[in-house]
């Protein structure tokens, strides 16, 4: 059984609770949901749809986590009104976990605040909810109506996905190569639709060379390949991360419903050798329009962005600061840096990273999605070119329809903003 199947099978809604049920691949099943993440969408389509049901309750308000992150602090009247509608709904239906607008980006904050645990099922009103699979759980994004369904019943239907086993061979990344480069290499191979409805299951002896931040980047971008979810096998890295997280300990104790990967006897699989990965870049206008950074050297850029739920972790900020230290951003380029959460921001301050960014001439913003979706704080103008650590570069994603976005690792973005043009991180690595 795949890890995804194992988790789904322990959550199946069944009439007779004695017999274990093993769901078949392709079967449509109803499962209990452990965590329901909602953000601004709560004030968008979720609230008006839920009101139509005429219910005066949410079945499990303790399972709902509500956060504001896309437009914080609000840049427009419309966005403020959306926040007001969302907050009113959360109060009216007694949602128990209200995180407000000062914590950071949903996918970074939920694990950080201990809401995500191995073996659970989490859904969210956001396509990048796949991110939590880094912590050995099943998680996926859904639309507003699915959220309403889960609010009302505590359950949701899923088609059991077919697994794709990604086995990391004993290997490590070369210097200047990161999980983002691996994610982009996978996009080069699978395109944006090869893995629709599938579960990406990561395991293998090289897994221990992928930090939690690396796993987050990979699970995050699995949705760019069309995957339903991505899941990483539980190991000592998962365990240590959770044990060091006081929020996790206070919610779950030192207990894990860890899910391990059986010996892979069937299903599609691919072996990954980390040492063969090169710095990669996705060119406009699709995350699978991938080539090596070396093939794009010299393309002039107007903006660099380091942040988002894909690459706004402390580790990401460290790798960017390592390169930017003692350098300045090119005078014709602006560089926006946004730590993915307030906790990361604080730690980056303590470590002196924020000072490095500011001395280099970067604009450091409060934790928000902001420029990632063209919302605020770095929206691109006509024909502007941006190199970004985010996950999508569709037309219009970060602003003007004519703007062009290149996706790369924080190290590649940092090297590029110094030169004002796309630059290999190896230029700044001793």
């Amino acid at each position, binding site marked *: 059984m795949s890890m995804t199947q194992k988790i789904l099978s322990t959550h199946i809604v069944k009439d007779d609770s004695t017999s274990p049920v093993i769901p078949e691949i392709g079967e449509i099943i109803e499962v209990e949901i452990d965590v329901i993440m909602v953000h601004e969408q709560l004030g968008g389509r979720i609230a008006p749809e839920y009101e139509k049901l005429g219910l005066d309750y949410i079945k499990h308000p303790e399972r709902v986590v509500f956060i504001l992150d896309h437009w914080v602090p609000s840049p427009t009247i419309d966005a403020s009104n959306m926040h007001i509608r969302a907050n009113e709904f959360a109060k009216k239906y007694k949602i128990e976990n209200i995180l407000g607008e000062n914590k950071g980006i949903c996918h970074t904050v939920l694990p950080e605040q201990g809401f995500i645990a191995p073996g659970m099922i989490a859904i969210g009103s956001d396509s990048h909810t796949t991110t939590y699979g880094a912590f050995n759980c099943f998680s996926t994004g859904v639309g507003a109506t699915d959220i309403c369904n889960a609010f009302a019943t505590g359950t949701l239907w899923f088609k059991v996905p077919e697994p794709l086993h990604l086995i990391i061979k004993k290997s490590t990344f070369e210097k200047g190569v990161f999980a983002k480069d691996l994610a982009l290499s996978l996009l080069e191979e699978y395109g944006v639709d090869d893995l629709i409805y599938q579960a990406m299951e990561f395991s293998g002896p090289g897994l221990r060379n992928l930090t939690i931040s690396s796993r987050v980047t990979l699970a995050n971008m699995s949705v760019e390949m069309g995957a339903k979810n991505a899941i990483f096998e539980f190991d000592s890295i998962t365990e240590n991360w959770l044990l060091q997280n006081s929020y996790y300990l206070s919610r779950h104790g030192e207990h894990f419903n860890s899910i391990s990967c059986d010996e892979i006897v069937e299903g599609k699989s691919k072996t990954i050798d980390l040492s063969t990965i090169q710095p990669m870049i996705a060119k406009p206008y699709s995350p699978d329009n991938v080539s090596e950074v070396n093939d794009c050297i010299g393309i002039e850029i107007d903006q660099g962005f380091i942040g988002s739920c894909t690459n706004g972790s402390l580790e990401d900020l460290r790798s960017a600061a390592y390169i930017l230290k003692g350098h300045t951003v090119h005078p014709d380029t602006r560089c926006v840096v946004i730590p993915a959460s307030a906790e990361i921001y604080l730690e980056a301050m303590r470590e002196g990273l924020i000072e490095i960014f500011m001395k280099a001439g970067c604009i450091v913003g409060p934790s928000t999605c902001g420029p990632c979706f063209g*919302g605020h704080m770095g929206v691109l103008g006509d024909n502007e070119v941006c190199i970004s650590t985010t996950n999508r570069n569709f037309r219009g994603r970060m602003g003007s329809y004519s703007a062009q976005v290149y996706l790369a690792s924080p190290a590649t973005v940092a090297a590029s903003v110094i030169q004002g043009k796309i630059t290999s991180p190896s230029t700044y690595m001793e």
Partner: protein
Amino acid sequence: MNTITGKVWVFGDFIDTDLIIPHAYLATSDPSELTKHAFESIYENFYQKVKRGDIIIAGKNFGTGSSREEAVFVLKQMGIAAVIAESFARIYYRNLINLGILAIQIENITHAVKNGDIITIDCRNGTLQNTTTSETFIFPSFPSFIVNLIEKGGTIHFLKEKLGKH
């Protein structure tokens, strides 16, 4: 959910949710204002050109990108009767079903239709005919669970009935 006949609008591959409804407009709470921007970068003033009962035909990975249900909601507002695509992005497919819009996957369909052709979909027999060219395609029948949701007009109506009974 027996037969549907309507005029088609043809779209290419990889029409993402930003092309269906740009993120910048999502904060508005006015449905008609939102709908004005549907597909605006592909067909200017699409909302004025489209008629209730029209059908969308698209290429690969239709609806890829964000989970925003607005990208299906605007179709519902415009009265789109069905969406046929060579493949769908996963969340978009769920959203179509959840809002009670018929979603059918047929390989290479974009090569067999032009804008303005009239097609007839027979859900019971799983056939789609381009009545302009007489070409016919087949598709597998839907699981009863999905038929039920669509016949009820979407998940909210389905839930209302289900929860109302308890």
